Structure formats: C-alpha cells, structure tokens
C-alpha cells in the first residue's frame, strides 16, 4: 500500500514556504494535500487565491464534508480546525483553540494520522511556536512518514526545531528541496490515483 495523503503544518513565514513547495508539484499530483496554516480569524480566502494562482495543483479552502481528492490542496479555513475522517471526508470544527491556534496543526495531523496510518506523509514547516509537534509524533506512531523543514532554511525556526526534538523524524530537508522530494516519493509509492482507498 502506498501513500494516500500529505498533511502540512506551517505558521510564521508559511505563505511563501507553501508556495515554494506547492509550485513544483504537477497538476495531476497523485494524492490530496491538507494544510493547516496559522492565520488571523478575520482573514478572507486570499491565501487560497494566492497559492492557487501560483501553483498547478488546485488550491482551495476546505469545505465542510468535502472529500479530499488528488490534484487538490485544501487549506483549513480561518477560525476553524480541520479534521479528516477515515473515509477521506473533511470535517471542520470550532472547538476551542489548541495551543492558541485555530486552525491547529496538531488537530489536523492527529486526525489524519488515524485516518491514513502508514499512508500519510506529515510535513512541518516554518513557524514561531511548537504547534504540530504532537501531531507529527502521532503520525510517526501510526507509521506515517515524517518530514521537517531544515530549520536553517526557515523564516522562523522554533516550530521545525520543536518537531525535531519531539520525534525521531524521517527526513530533515531544506525548503527548496521539499517539493521535488515529495514528488519523487509519491511517484514511486502512491496508492491509487484517486488518493484514497
């Protein structure tokens, strides 16, 4: 069984980091990508528009009970947590902030780890806090692949550093190489073309 989904967590500096990763992915990228980027609760969907313009994969804000499919990147909407169900449907939640954040990276990662198990790749990018550390650990426990941006290439180092110290991560990769790296392993080891089983 191959990979079925990718989750990415980012905070300070994430807008550019996400662009740099997503813009190298092909339009028919074989698995869905789910992103929790810390963002002001009052913002509109400019981030989705910005990334969608810059990238070949379709980037959009996740809609409630939408099925996550290949070729698409889903952003957690401002002021909502994003979770993924076992059958690949996206659920949103307004439960309390986790580590001051909504969306919280941990919430997305923990639910995705349990939904996809070893079929999941988790990536922690730049950020000035420690959100995502617990979630990445959970991905590792559930046999998923864990990747952290090389802190020396991050606009804010704290988040990747926290993730590295919490988990024995599989790969630490400079920002500009992450996109090509995941392209390559997804091509070698993806599940089916629909991105879910």
């Amino acid at each position: 069984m191959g990979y079925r989904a990718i989750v990415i967590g980012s905070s300070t500096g994430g807008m550019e980091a996400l662009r740099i990763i997503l813009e190298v992915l092909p339009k028919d990228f074989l698995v869905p990508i789910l992103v929790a980027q810390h963002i002001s609760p009052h913002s509109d969907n400019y981030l989705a528009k910005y990334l969608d313009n810059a990238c070949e994969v379709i980037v959009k804000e996740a809609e409630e009970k939408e099925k996550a499919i290949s070729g698409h990147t889903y952003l957690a909407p401002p002021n909502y947590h994003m979770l993924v169900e076992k059958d690949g449907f996206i659920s949103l939640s307004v439960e309390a902030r986790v580590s001051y954040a909504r969306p919280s990276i941990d919430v997305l990662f923990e639910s995705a780890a349990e939904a996809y198990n070893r079929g999941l790749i988790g990536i922690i990018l730049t950020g000035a806090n420690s959100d995502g550390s617990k979630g990445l650990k959970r991905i590792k426990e559930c046999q998923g692949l864990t990747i952290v941006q090389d802190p020396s290439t991050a606009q804010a180092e704290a988040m990747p550093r926290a993730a590295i110290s919490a988990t024995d991560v599989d790969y630490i990769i400079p920002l500009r190489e992450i996109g090509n790296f995941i392209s390559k392993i997804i091509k070698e080891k993806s599940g089916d073309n629909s991105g879910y089983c």
Partner: protein
Amino acid sequence: MSNDQTINNLENEELEIRLLLEAIFLKYGYDFRDYSKAHLKRRIMHRLSLSELNTISQMQHQVLYDRWFLETLLRDFSINVTEMFRDPPFYKAFRQEVVPVLKTYPYIKVWHAGCSSGEEVYSMAILLKEEGLYERTQIYATDFNVEVLEKAKQAIYPIDDIKEYTYNYQQSGGLASFADYYIARYDSVILDQALKRKIIFADHNLVTDGVFGEMHVIICRNVLIYFNRDLQNNVFKLFYESLRNGGFLGIGTKESLRFSDYMGKFNIISENLKIYQKKFEV
C-alpha cells in the same frame, strides 16, 4: 509501545467508540452514532486523558452506571464555543436581505436551533430590536444540552470577550452602541434583560426530536459540522419541514446545503454567507 501495537489499538478504539455510542443511545436515548467520528474521537480521548479511566471500554461501563458521567460526555460532545455576532457579514446580510421581507409580516417566528450558551440568540434579538421587529417576534432557542440552556437564560458572559463582541457588532451593521445592551459587573457582563422577553428556551434534540413548525426563520450555525452527511441530510429535512413557504434558513459560513438532497428546494440568498430561502411549494 511498538508501532504495530499502535495500529492494533486504533482498530480496537474504533470498535470501542461504536460500542460506547451504542450504549449511550440504548440507555439514555442520546444518539451520537452519526456524529463525525474524527470529532468524537478527539473529544473521547480528551475526556479519557482527564479521567481515571484507562480505556474507552471502561468509559462505557462508567457511563452506563453513572448518570453524572453522561452529563460530562454530553458537555464534551457538544461544542459550545460561540460569540456574539459571530461572522459579522452574516448579520449584515441578514439585515439587508432578510429583514425587508420580515417587515412585511404581522408576526415572525424564529427558531434558533443548537443555540448553545445563547450569544447568537441575543445577537439576533438585538438585530431585530434595532430593525423594529422585536415586538412582533417570537424566538425559540433550543439545544439538547440543558446545562448550556441554563447559561443562555442567564445571559451573563465574561467581560474579556466584550471587546471582540463590540468589534463584531460594529462590523455587523449595528445601529447603536453595543454598550447599550449590557451592564458590566466585576469580571462579567449581564445583557439587557428586556432582550429575553420574546425568547423561549427549550430542550430539543436535532437528532432525535421532530418538527418545530411554521417558522419564518431558522438559524443553526456551526452545529451541522459535527454530523456526518446522512445526519446532515436528516436535519435539513427537519428544517425544510419546519419552515413556512418563503421562510429563511441561515447556517454556518462553512456549512452547505450543496451535498444534501434539499439544495433544489431552496433559493440561494447569499452563497458565501449561507442564507437560503425555502421555495414556495405548489
């Protein structure tokens, strides 16, 4: 713990959660079986970590023999995070698109389903008051959680939230000063008691209870996100049947009729802000 053990545990936990939900339903009639599993798992594991219990199976035993523990779980499963004038553009659109129609009616019935601790009910009461409609309105505010209903009746909220509520109120097209609607005491504010006059608070469960008839407006925001698609569809049916012809439905800005069987039975008043109007049946 080895990683294979983790996967094995996950499978067991899934089974245990199904048994727990079945036990709650059979014993107490509260039906969470069609709630979002990812959401329930989070809430259950959170409760487990705070409790003395070791497994979800132990939790099942606990809930069967301890009514108070049920109350704890009910509190855990219903998310009661809300704000006054949450999503200000929703209220602004309601003023602009819905209020002019309501003004043509001699009386108005509003159902606020899943009202939680009441912040959004009082927001609507303020809006209707400012639009001169409050006197001819009856608001039914319901929730399945009687504990939060009690909180809603009190209309006492933390003073720390007022700054944000004031901002929301202003953004929502408020016509007065938000400070007109509350009195501050120590760490709390109490809302103007006159706002309660036309509100009836009642215990109603969207999953297991029936039609609440002949409404002009139904508001139910950020409740459906915790349900799976089948259950969402059932609730849309309930709303459809509880609305008069031409009645309005307002749901959360990230919720949608789109994946339900009822999309064709409503006109879209605002796609972004999720305000719909029931079509006239012939």
